[in-house]
């Protein structure tokens, strides 16, 4: 018998049925995982499809993926800060400033585009580093530091843009092309889908093999196969459906790649463990020899860097940087996406995939309301309500987790 299944109190749950029972059990205990997001997404899509049949059309969904990339990248950074139990409220301003710096250096100063991008990203990293230093040295709550940053960097953005207030990026530049017109060829999209499925199966199989060798219980080959085939079917369908019109944008692929990288860093490296540990219990992390300050700094740097990258993508998508870049609901959309994706505001819970799921929900709402010709005033109200709902789900499931002993 496998080493980890020897306790007589453990109920044996084998195969697919066992896995399903586990999921249900966990959900009952408040460990909802992606269930609320998926349910929410189905509800939202159904409602908007009924109200406007264009909503689920291929053309609109292609647009939706492109629109979600910029704020999605920002949300990815927010997930990291929330994981350590902190918050960054300035991501909108930082993204706006980053877009402005890019435009000024690229168009105004005539620098090569890669240099302008590098400068913007570097600036984001420096901002995050400053946040980290302020947080570690003076112990000011991150909420206040970044609130100050929100105003200060908005000011800097206006200053950088100058009196004109808006700089257009040339349409023939690679950057704008990347964000607006560059789509993955159909054959390559399908190849990506196959690679993903094969990868999932191969890594799962090797892991199961290693576990069996060590005398531990492992997933059966059939369960792994079912999982991979399911992924392949879903991805292939998405690629096929988006391929009816323009296909999958490179910018969206870039966003998904960042999500995958962050997922790896958070779940498979020592740094990721440290992030979760700091979010769960700072004192315990410190006593375990984790350099808590370095973890905080790294997370703030990552968040601001992602905000800067998001700002560049947004500027490229719009083909311009102006005074309202990163203003309005960008901030809250990014935070809402992270929370809706299952990242807890209380720290220590959440995944990189949460940013992907969350931003699709947020962008669906925004897209649906736009299709209904509704004013941004109503969009703000609805987004606010959805954010509130997500936070309530987070709090309630946290309470349920505590009473069911699942942290």
């Amino acid at each position: 018998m496998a080493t980890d299944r020897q306790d007589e109190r453990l109920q044996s749950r084998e195969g697919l049925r066992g896995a399903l029972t586990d999921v249900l059990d966990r959900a009952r205990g408040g460990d909802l995982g992606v269930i609320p997001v998926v349910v929410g997404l189905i509800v939202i899509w159904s409602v908007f499809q009924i109200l406007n049949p264009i909503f689920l059309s291929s053309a609109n969904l292609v647009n939706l993926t492109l629109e979600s990339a910029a704020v999605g990248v920002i949300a990815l950074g927010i997930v990291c800060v929330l994981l350590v139990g902190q918050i960054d409220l300035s991501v909108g301003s930082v993204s706006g400033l980053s877009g402005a710096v890019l435009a000024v250096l690229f168009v105004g100063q005539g620098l090569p585009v890669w240099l302008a991008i590098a400068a913007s990203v570097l600036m984001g990293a420096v901002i995050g580093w400053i946040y980290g230093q302020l947080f570690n040295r003076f112990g000011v709550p991150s909420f206040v530091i970044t609130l100050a940053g929100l105003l200060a960097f908005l000011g800097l953005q206006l200053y950088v843009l100058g009196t004109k207030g808006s700089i257009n990026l040339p349409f023939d530049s690679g950057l704008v092309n990347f964000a607006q017109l560059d789509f993955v060829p159909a054959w390559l999209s399908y190849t990506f889908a196959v690679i993903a499925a094969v990868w999932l199966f191969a890594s799962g199989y090797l892991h199961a093999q290693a576990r069996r060798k060590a005398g531990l219980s492992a997933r059966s080959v059939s369960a792994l196969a079912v999982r991979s085939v399911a992924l392949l079917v879903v991805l292939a369908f998405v690629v096929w459906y988006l391929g009816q019109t323009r296909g999958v944008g490179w910018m969206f692929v870039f966003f998904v790649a960042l999500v995958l990288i962050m997922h790896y860093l958070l779940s498979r490296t020592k740094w990721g463990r440290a992030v979760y540990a700091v979010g769960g219990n700072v004192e315990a992390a410190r006593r375990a020899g984790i350099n808590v300050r370095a973890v905080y700094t790294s997370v703030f740097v990552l968040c601001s860097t992602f905000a800067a990258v998001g700002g560049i993508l947004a500027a490229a998508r719009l083909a311009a940087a102006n005074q309202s870049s990163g203003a309005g609901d960008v901030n809250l959309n990014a935070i809402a996406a992270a929370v809706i994706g299952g990242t807890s505001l209380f720290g220590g819970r959440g995944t990189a995939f949460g940013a992907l799921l969350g931003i699709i929900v947020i962008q669906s709402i925004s897209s649906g309301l736009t299709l209904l010709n509704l004013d941004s005033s109503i969009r703000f109200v609805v987004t606010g309500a959805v954010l509130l709902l997500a936070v309530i789900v987070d709090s309630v499931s946290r309470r349920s987790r505590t009473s069911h002993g699942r942290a």
Partner: protein
Amino acid sequence: MSVLSLRGIGKTFGAVAALTDIDLDVDAGQVVAVVGDNGAGKSTLVKILSGVHPPDGGTITFEGREVEIPTPAAAHKLGIATVFQDLALCENLNVIQNLFLGQEIRPLRLNDVAMETRSWELLRQLSAKIPSVRVPVAALSGGQRQTVAIARSLLGDPKIIILDEPTAALGVAQTAEVLNLVERLRENGLGVIMISHNMADVKAVADTVAVLRLGRNNGVFDVDSVSTEDIVAAITGATDNVVSRRARRGQS
């Protein structure tokens, strides 16, 4: 020869002498209970041994060599592991993740399989009753958490393990579980320093009892040949108190 010997250890905080001239010896495979009233200096002693506070004077001899313990990392390196009263576990992480926190195997591509195997080894070694190591620590009982904390301290193969009030917040069954664990540590040849308030626990597992009173040694007793009343008398510094009076009443 003792694994760990303290001679003349002193520590002052401002004008307050928290510890004065403390001697203590711990052998391999020996459980030494350190008892004392509130403010007797038990916690200060733990902190000196675990490298949180350096002592102001005196010598610490570890395995025959005179050593200094300036930082927690130094204590860890020497082979002195401390389990603090609040356990310092991350409730959102599972048992494996907690056991290996800060000392994961293969930092850039975590080796979950090796860590899980080693976790089971450690827990088996302690005959721990934890059904699954993949549940978050929040799902465990107080005794099981204590087990996890002790198992974690065993990761670095320590020679001395310090338990700070291991049974303070536990129920009857869980206390018995932890005391069994202490027994197991002794069988494995570790020196155990157990800080405790509970005379029943001390009598149950300790070999010797060192009493601190107002920051000074107030006697080292062999557990088998000392009565609870004598220990209480040494702790309170008075031969006339409720416990001793009742004992006398019982005799007469």
